[in-house]
């Protein structure tokens, strides 16, 4: 315990760039997610349960299942994403880490973007990768698998970004979950329409390209605008 280290005002503590800050943020999120473990599997479990139970509740007829498969997989994936969003900033808010982020000299939108990227890597991407397996359970025709994976990969990234805005706005509320759903669901609808549309088009022998392109455009728009909205939302709700 030395009180005389005196370095508090000298040249120690070389500055780092924005990139290093992002890397630190990403590594922190990955570590926290790894140690929480269970939260990672939840969205996948949800998707799997819906897909497994659906044929039991409706009918195991392959034709019927094949016709609802694109929409069903997409709706289930969208709800799975929604479920995972509530906790996105909550832990950080409770332990004070969010305050440190807000008072960082690094730009907040970029730090938020790093957080959202990790969220997508740990929820959206696994959903996109596992969806073909679940497609088999729903007798999804072979032509739809590639479009399913691509549309989910693109679409869930948009869902993560949009959802993070809602999570940021509701982080200060004791039970923000319901409000979060109400806030972001209307914004999720275009993603759902084009996502399910891409898969359906591929199955029916049409082109999935246009719908996928639109999903890509939505993602580009969300990437450009959402980080600022997330940062603004956080500032509002932390000081509310």
């Amino acid at each position, binding site marked *: 315990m030395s009180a005389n280290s005196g370095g508090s005002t000298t040249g120690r*503590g070389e500055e780092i760039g924005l990139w290093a*800050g992002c890397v630190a*943020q990403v590594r922190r999120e990955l570590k926290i997610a790894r140690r929480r473990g269970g939260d990672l599997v939840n969205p996948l479990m949800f998707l799997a349960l819906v897909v497994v139970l659906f044929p039991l509740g409706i009918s195991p007829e392959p034709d019927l299942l094949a016709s609802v498969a694109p929409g069903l997989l997409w709706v289930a994936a969208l709800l799975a994403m929604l479920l995972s969003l509530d906790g996105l900033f909550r832990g950080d808010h409770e*332990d*004070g880490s969010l*305050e440190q982020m807000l*008072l*960082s*000299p690094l730009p907040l939108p970029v730090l938020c973007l790093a957080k959202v990227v990790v969220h997508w890597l740990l929820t959206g991407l696994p959903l996109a990768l596992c969806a073909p397996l679940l497609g088999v359970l729903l007798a999804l025709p072979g032509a739809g698998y590639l479009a399913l994976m691509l549309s989910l990969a693109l679409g869930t990234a948009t869902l993560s970004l949009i959802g993070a805005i809602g999570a940021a706005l509701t982080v200060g509320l004791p039970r923000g979950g319901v409000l979060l759903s109400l806030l972001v669901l209307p914004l999720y609808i275009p993603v759902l329409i084009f996502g399910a549309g891409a898969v359906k088009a591929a199955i029916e022998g049409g082109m999935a390209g246009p719908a996928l392109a639109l999903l890509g455009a939505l993602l580009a728009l969300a990437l450009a605008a959402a980080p600022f909205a997330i940062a603004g939302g956080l500032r509002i709700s932390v000081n509310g």
Partner: protein
Amino acid sequence: MAVKVSLRASRLACERDDRWLFRALDLRVEDGDILRIEGANGSGKTTLLKLLTGQLPPTEGRIEWHGEPLARSREAFLSQLLYVGHAPGVSAALTAQENLAWAAAMAGVRAPVPDLERALEAVGLAGFEDIPARQLSAGQRRRIALARLELVPRPLWILDEPFTAIDREGVAWLERRLVAHGDAGGAVVMTTHHTFHANGRVDSLLLGEAA
């Protein structure tokens, strides 16, 4: 040497839930100052710190950093500020060292492992580097947050109840550390009920009566 810290608040007023927490508050913090903000619970100590760090806009009055309004010089201000809030900003899932490394990155400072270890040792956490904060006591978590004082060189420290939860030895260390920071030309603003050993060194601001 150029003045590093010049934080000035004039005619500051804050209203919360239709109640004035304080009105017409004037305050000035410059190099070498140690300012203690006192007041009863609910008198607005933490709110004042939030105003001073630009997290909340004041209802009335202005806050200036080197003569510029705080909102306009935000980036320059944040790169000179070290803030330890009411919640220590320590994630329970991460180890002491990981927490500190992240905090340094958020402050925009490079922190190689030897520096992290030295900072943790300075706050009495040598040997606890790799233990998740979940398994540490409240006082030890607070010490992880305080290790930033050793690691991140910033002239202005704004600390919310830094003496909470730490033991007597830790209090003595922190007191010495704060005075040393002031003597080295840094400035400290904190809320606390703690009475300093070297009390003559500390200016006090009492909230809740002048209002």
